[in-house]
């Protein structure tokens, strides 16, 4: 096999599913049962009228594995549509994090300054803590959290990636 075929790449896959009991378990069970990676997974209702949910999965694997993952997802009965946003062209990917930082004095001021640079908002504050809300790519969030580590990083909660293709086309 060519080295290219062995290369593991990250893919962002969007799955449109019926919003019914057990559908998330089917998707997660598929990944754990067949030994695929999940780097991030988000799910929420996107069309309440037709009871459709959208699951966004970030996974990695060789091209053959990624093709398998998509085919396996597609044959689940409640799945309407599987779309590989990584292959489909340009896309927007966003993640939201809530980051709690504890500190006093200069460290506290520095955390605020960095938050400003990253366009993070303060959504809660006490005299010795902030909760920042930051939206951006996974990499941006990682960088922000890294910078907060020496400044009193206490707790992180992240949503995982949501994504959508750029342009007029829909999945």
């Amino acid at each position, binding site marked *: *096999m060519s080295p290219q*075929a062995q290369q593991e790449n990250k893919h962002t896959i969007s799955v449109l*599913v*019926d919003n019914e*009991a*057990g559908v998330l*378990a*089917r998707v997660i*069970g598929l990944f754990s*049962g067949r030994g695929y990676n999940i780097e991030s997974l988000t799910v929420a209702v996107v069309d309440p009228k037709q009871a459709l949910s959208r699951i966004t999965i970030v996974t990695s694997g060789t091209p*053959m594995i990624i*093709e*398998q993952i998509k*085919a*396996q997802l*597609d*044959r*689940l*009965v*409640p*799945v*309407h549509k599987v779309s590989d946003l990584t292959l489909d062209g340009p896309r927007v990917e966003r993640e939201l994090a809530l980051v709690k930082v504890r500190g006093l004095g200069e460290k506290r001021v520095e955390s605020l300054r960095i938050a400003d640079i990253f366009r993070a908002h303060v959504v809660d504050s006490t005299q010795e803590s902030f909760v920042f809300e930051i939206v951006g790519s996974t990499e941006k969030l990682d960088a922000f959290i890294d910078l907060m580590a020496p400044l009193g990083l206490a707790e992180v909660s992240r949503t995982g990636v949501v994504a959508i293709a750029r342009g007029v086309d829909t999945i």
Partner: protein
Amino acid sequence: MSTEPMNGSQILLKALSEQGVDVIFGYPGGAVLPIYDELFKQNHIRHILVRHEQGAAHAAEGYARSTGKVGVILVTSGPGATNAVTGLTDALMDSIPLVCITGQVPTHLIGNDAFQEADTTGITRPCTKHNYLVKKTGDLARVVHEAFYVARSGRPGPVVIDLPKDVAMGLGHYTPATAVGHKSYNPRTEGDPQLIAQAIELMAKAKCPLVYAGGGVINSGPQASERLTRFIRDTGFPCTLTLMGLGAYPASDKQFLGMVGMHGTFEANHAMHDCDLMICIGARFDDRVTGRLNAFSPGSKKIHIDIDPSSINKNVAVDIGIVGDVGNVLGEMAGLWKARKNKPDKKVLAPWWKKIEAWRSRLCLRYKPSSSIIKPQYAIERLYALTREHKDVFITTEVGQHQMWAAQHFGFDKPNHWMTSGGLGTMGYGLPAAMGVQVAHPKALVIDIAGEASVIMNIQEMSTIAQYRLPVKVFILNNQYMGMVRQWQELLHGGRYSESYMESLPDFVKLAEAFGAAGLRATKPDEVDDVIKEMLAIDKAVIVDVMVDQKENCFPMIPSGAAHNEMLLGPDDEAGNPISDEGMVLV
């Protein structure tokens, strides 16, 4: 929507009738009592009372595979459902359409660890094609129709309907099947015409082509087998079949190379290895077929036709993957091939056939005959020969050496006449499966070719067979060992036969009698014919205990971790080919 509300159990039975169900295999219990009460009050659906829920599942598999219809199981909650899990998994692996209705504790008790409660949808999620938990009686008819649609369409498989007792007792309206469509599950059945044309192009250029077909051809229906047969004859290509595909192409035809895979023929496996074009039709490049993947058919272009897109490029990367019902695609291909002007001369294939004939002349299924001890292969050969005058012969098997010998030595010329547990390899499959086949075909000759270890795993079904006077024949090749385990211990573990020998086996003749069947035994080769003739003459269930050579191994064999062209032809080949460490870890 009909006007009169009905209770859930009535709705269930009405929906089953509308789906054409005439037989259910089941076992009652607390959570399904309302359904059994309605069953009692009607006459159009027959219920076969099994002795264990696993038996019900395998019986339904035998019924489904021999008729092409959906098999139906009805079991209670908790242990009823968990006992059916092996059969469901078996049906999933072998793509057998089943609908399994499991009772469940009433909705308000779900999650409370109630008596006989199990998380049935949770447990069966990975071993079914799909499953449902019905929360409202009004949804039940729709769910039943959907379940049948999912079970039989696309790549068939088992579907579970978990039915809480209060839903089975509550009132609701019936929805007819015609009113139920499916919004998300619509498998593609027509192949892409462009890809089909490309496939024909490759076929026209091939010098060493090979068709490798599997259970998908059987699942597509008898017409697919007819089309495959005609296509093979039109093209002059050689054809091999997987274990699940036996019968899709007539075994007696000279273009048939025998079964492929671990215990397939020398000629089929060498042809797989050396072909320049492999046309895989309704098979899935299973590890029993491919042997060592990085040595699998290295020089060939590969075409794969399958109804399940996830089968394509799963284990083996192919050049052309056609998603569609194999029957439809074969029809398209046959038309294109016929219409084609510059078809390759049959002479082009002559050198390839010459090579195949050379492999064939090795007579790989040969064994050392004996006049004092019954060779298992001999017993099956005689069984085959002596059943030729029967119009309809259905064979089921258990799992192990006897299964492979049956596949090698019993020829199948028609589809749907061979029932075996291929993917899951479930010991104990054959007896209940034979029961299901006999229920579907009361007049036919149904034989379970069994091993003594496997058959004991579901021997309780002899009682069901007695109750319904099913004339199933159980042909046991008794070597007192788990033969395949013993064979692997001999080949891989220095002949240390750890726990593969069974002491204190039952006297199968007396056992047969205890279950109201006839019991026969053969201990010498010259008794085999008589015992088979006697078995065939008895018009009730028979167990035949054939005492065979305990040491016989199943050959030819591709040892684990080896390639197709590294087959062992017999015991003399073993010493020179030690099995690699990589091979040792494989199953």
